[in-house]
């Protein structure tokens, strides 16, 4: 019984964190789904969703209801178990990284010493889900989408890790809270602008978004790995994608934009989340902006860019960082 009382606060903490994580995942998907369509519309000089509610703000709710009402079709000769399992695998792991992200100096689920490793490890499970979904669909388009997703994500994980590693060398810690604390005078974007740029390019490829959306290239592969998915199993992939966008943008905020630091507000230990969210959504706006600006790259261009430009530059940047850390 005493053990129970000693772990009770921790249990409550876990439950509260999980609920907050779910709220963030679903709320973020609603906001980003609407913002993406609205921004896409205005960039194309049209208004975007306008019919449901004032300026179409209930469009996503209606879409969600529609997706819930749709039949989940499993194609003939598809692997039924893996086919059902893949969307869950794409969606379930996105909650955990939210637990270690420091939204403000006190709003953090758990401050792990290996916070960054947890995020990176769980973010790459999404790739496994894409591979399983594409393979089990028994469809050429899905399989090609899955191929491309794997090769692209594996390639772009390297510059992403290298650019984060140069920050890690400077801070000597994987704990996200410590990284935020380390940039109290200047944000790391000032010291490491190249690493930030490389990270920014890599996350576009990591989240499979245009101009690197080859895994779901509509014009070539109908819908890529989620061609055969309908209803909620499709929307779980989309929810996972938006949550991943949120996570990678949060990591960029923590590592380069100073986390929750900013002009102090009342109760800053908690209200720092306002600055944090502002930075995250600015980055997400940037991701949406480039999605509706650039045409899709060809696959060899994508790979050439990674192996010939991003990785050498990231390595050189890392080398310079290491030398400078040693010297200073």
């Amino acid at each position, binding site marked *: 019984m005493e053990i129970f009382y000693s772990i009770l606060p921790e249990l409550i903490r876990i439950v509260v964190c999980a609920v907050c994580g779910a709220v963030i995942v679903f709320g973020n998907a609603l906001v980003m789904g609407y913002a993406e369509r609205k921004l896409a519309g205005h960039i194309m000089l049209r208004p975007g969703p306008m019919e449901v509610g004032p300026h179409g703000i209930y469009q996503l709710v209606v879409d969600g209801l529609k997706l819930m009402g749709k039949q989940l079709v499993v194609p003939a000769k598809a692997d039924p178990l893996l086919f059902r399992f893949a969307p869950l695998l794409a969606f379930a792991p996105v909650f955990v990284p939210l637990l270690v992200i420091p939204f403000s100096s006190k709003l953090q689920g758990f401050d792990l010493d290996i916070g960054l490793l947890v995020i990176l490890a769980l973010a790459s499970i999404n790739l496994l889900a894409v591979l399983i979904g594409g393979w089990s669909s028994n469809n050429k388009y899905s399989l090609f989408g899955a191929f491309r997703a794997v090769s692209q994500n594996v390639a772009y994980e390297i510059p992403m890790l290298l650019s984060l590693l140069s920050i890690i060398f400077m801070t000597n810690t994987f704990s996200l809270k410590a990284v935020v604390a380390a940039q109290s005078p200047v944000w790391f974007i000032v010291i490491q602008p190249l690493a930030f740029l490389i990270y920014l390019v890599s996350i576009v490829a990591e989240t499979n978004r245009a101009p690197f959306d080859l895994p779901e290239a509509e014009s070539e592969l109908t819908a890529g790995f989620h061609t055969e998915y309908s209803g909620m199993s499709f929307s779980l992939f989309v929810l996972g994608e938006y949550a991943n966008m949120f996570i990678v943008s949060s990591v960029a905020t923590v590592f380069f934009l100073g986390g929750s630091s900013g002009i102090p507000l009342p109760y800053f230990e908690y209200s720092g989340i306002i600055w944090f969210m502002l930075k995250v959504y600015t980055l997400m706006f940037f991701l949406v902006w*480039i999605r509706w600006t650039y045409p899709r790259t060809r696959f060899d261009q994508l790979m050439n860019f990674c192996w010939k430009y991003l990785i050498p530059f990231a390595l050189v940047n890392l080398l310079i960082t290491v030398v400078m850390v040693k010297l200073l």
Partner: protein
Amino acid sequence: MKSYFSELFTGAWSLILGLKVTIKALFSPIVTYQYPREKLVVTPNYRGHIDLVKDAETGAHKCITCGSCMRECPSDCIFLDGEKREGVKGKALTIFTLNFTKCSLCGACVEVCPTDALDYSNEYELAGFTREEFHYDLLKRVEERE
């Protein structure tokens, strides 16, 4: 080695220019019309189905019931008939129907009309549940028109 870096810089510069184009578009006014709520003004040159012209002076149609349009029509979609009336020179028009489901919009009837009694209407919202909705009584339409 030189092209390696020059490609990088020209590429990056073109990407920035692209972003400039779209951010400008993002803040410029929209150009589309929310169709059922707002409607475009249809150009007078628009060629809808044919309609009888209303004479501005007499307030009546100008058809003399010669039947040229009916004979000219390649799709056989015009039917008209008239009768002899007291005090009216020639025949008076009693019926003028257009079966628009068969019309090929060639405009031969408008060309052939000796009195310019036919013209194109500006109707473009043509949707219906039955074919009979597109059997127009043009005589009734011209009488009802302002």
